[in-house]
């Protein structure tokens, strides 16, 4: 079975075995299929069962196929000056505010507070695994059908305003982070390519991102005040 989706301004053909992925991508499916999609993705039964074995909780084959498919897409994105980043992206006033944290720190909790604070003005581009793509010398955050368990996201994109790493804290404090710390924190949120040529392109993207995008570290409580602290710094 196969279908084509449009995401990140790319046409991607997905060849699949299970129904799960098609349902997940429903809103992204192209009505008219292209002869030459930008990429064709197919994962093997072996990849799927390997994924299932390594899962910490019980998951279906369909779910595992979806995870494998996204990983395969991620690996091919390098050729399009794009990469997958683990994080939550909030759109506000046409710009993307990116939040990244270790699992369980509370990027969903924090970004939900943005929705509350900027009611009607802020929305999710993607709550879990957005794609970042360089276009015309600007970095854009794109929505994708992979939106995490909360399913927060849409088919929009916006230029990245700033990236904020989150940590839990008693007080709300934000500070700028510089190169060495950016590298240590950013590389935990991305998937490194394996092949030499791809690594070279990927590292150029990381370099540009480090030089052009402001990065912050927010230590915060679960409060609307934390949103104010983050917004005041990140809006620049």
């Amino acid at each position, binding site marked *: 079975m196969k279908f084509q989706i449009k995401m990140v301004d790319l046409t991607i053909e997905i060849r699949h075995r299970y129904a799960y992925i098609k349902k997940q991508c429903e809103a992204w499916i192209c009505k008219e299929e292209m002869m030459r999609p930008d990429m064709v993705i197919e994962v093997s039964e072996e990849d799927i069962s390997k994924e299932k074995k390594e899962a910490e909780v019980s998951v279906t084959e369909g779910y595992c196929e979806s995870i494998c498919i996204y990983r395969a897409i991620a690996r091919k994105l390098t050729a399009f000056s794009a990469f997958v980043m683990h994080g939550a992206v909030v759109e506000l006033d046409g710009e993307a505010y990116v939040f990244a944290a270790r699992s369980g720190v509370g990027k969903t909790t924090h970004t939900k507070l943005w929705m509350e604070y900027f009611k009607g003005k802020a929305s999710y581009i993607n709550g879990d695994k957005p794609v970042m793509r360089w276009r015309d010398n600007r970095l854009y955050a794109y929505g994708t059908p992979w939106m995490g368990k909360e399913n927060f996201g849409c088919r929009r994109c916006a230029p990245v305003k700033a990236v904020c790493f989150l940590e839990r804290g008693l007080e709300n404090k934000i500070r700028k982070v510089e190169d060495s710390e950016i590298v240590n924190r950013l590389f935990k949120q991305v998937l*490194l390519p394996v*092949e030499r040529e791809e690594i070279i392109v990927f590292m150029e993207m990381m370099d540009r991102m480090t030089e052009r995008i402001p990065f912050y570290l927010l230590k915060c409580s679960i409060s609307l005040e934390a949103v104010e602290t983050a917004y005041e710094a990140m809006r620049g």
Partner: protein
Amino acid sequence: MKAKDGFLMRKVGERRVVVPVGEASESFRGMLNLNETGAFLWNLLSGDTTEEEMLDAMLAEYDTNREEAKKGIEKFLQKLRETGILEE
């Protein structure tokens, strides 16, 4: 001693980041985040060298004294040993 094959160093901001390529990525996950001196020392290790040679090279390149340079090199090599990138 020398650095194991299969690693690539690239510039990211003001840092130099060393990552595994191809097969090396199966045994080494992650990266090294180096400053300029670290990058200089890494380049020396692309061929077979000794601690003594590294020290001489560093003293020729940088405005530093023998003791400081020696300490720096030892710290750097320690980092490489911990991550298993060094061949001795």
